């Protein structure tokens, strides 16, 4: 996306919230949904538009795990590392995942296809190890099923 386009999106979101800085987290959520992530220019524009210091916006944007200041993949992978999934062998699944994608947890593949993250329990412990890709839940994962599951996404 061009910087100009990004700034236009920021403007629209700020207008929707009537420049109310008390809902900064919601604003950042919407902006991220529009722009995919929170690039520097976008945070600067948000700061200017709301009249809130950039330092405060940076503080909030880096505090919540839901925000990303780096580009993210089209598909967001969450490997559950909660207690139940851990006991059921999630460590091996995560290792295989990192190996298959060639990235570490928290990173994004260079073709911007996948971003790999972990999560602590998604409430489906009986089906662990759980892997969530986008909106889809994949249960009873093993290192062997990692490859085939990833093939469903392009």
């Amino acid at each position, binding site marked *: 996306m061009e910087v100009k386009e990004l700034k236009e999106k920021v403007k629209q979101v700020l207008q929707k919230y009537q420049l109310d800085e008390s809902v900064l987290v919601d604003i950042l959520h919407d902006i991220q949904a529009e722009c995919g992530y929170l690039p*520097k220019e976008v*945070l600067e524009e948000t700061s200017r538009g709301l009249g809130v*210091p*950039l*330092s*405060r*916006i*940076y*503080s909030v944007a*880096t*505090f919540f795990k839901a925000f990303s*200041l780096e580009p993210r993949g089209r598909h967001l992978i969450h490997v559950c590392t909660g207690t139940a999934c851990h006991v059921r062998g999630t460590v091996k699944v995560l290792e295989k995942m990192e190996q298959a994608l060639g990235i570490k947890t928290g990173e994004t593949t260079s073709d911007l296809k996948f971003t790999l993250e972990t999560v602590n329990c998604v409430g489906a412990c009986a089906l662990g190890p759980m892997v969530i890709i986008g909106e889809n839940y994949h249960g009873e994962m093993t290192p062997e099923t990692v490859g085939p599951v990833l093939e469903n996404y392009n």
Partner: protein
Amino acid sequence: MVKLTINGREITVEEGTTILHAARENNIYIPTLCENEAVAPYGACRLCLVEITTARGRERLVTSCIYLVEEGLTVRTDTERIGRIRRMLLELLLARCADSEVIHDLARQASVTRTRFTKQTGNNKCILCANCARTCEEVVGVAAISLARRGVDREMTTPFNEDFSEVCIGCGSCAYSCPTSAITLEDTDGTRVINWPHNQMEFKMKACSVCGKYWAPEKQVEYVARTSGTPLSDYDACPDCRE
């Protein structure tokens, strides 16, 4: 006025006073580290904790620099439990800030001589109290730095960790407000150097047109002129020579 008891002594203070100030007014000592009157109460270091029993009989541990006095409140500032928790806090702080004189002093006062935790390396004086950032925003109005990230990655820094801050005016309020001297300031012939936990910034100082003394960073002078709506030429001479 509000009546309360601290360490068995009945005292009366104005409504809206914190327990800490009520204690100080009555010469009762509570150790503090991050408390700073110039900015809004925040409660980062937890060293000022006290035990309270409310008028309704509820017992709690609270940070006295934030908690406001209540009618009928009973406060204890030096129980065994508080001592135990405070010593633990100091051990943690000692591990985090091995180079901080202030923390060593507070630890010594509480008879803490060593820490069982792994000592942190790198810039190890910052306790993440945000006094610097809050002074910069609340008092100066610039907001050049802030706390970023969370958990073990939390740090005091500029937006995007940039080495140079466009907005910083070099006033040094952060250094003055830092309880542990994690931020330092040094003026040498015409230049001011401010060391933040993550970087270093240099500022050109303005020389007085009369006595020639360097009296403030140029950027700060420009900022003062701009925000007060006065012409920059008003600031050619230093405050001493301006009389």
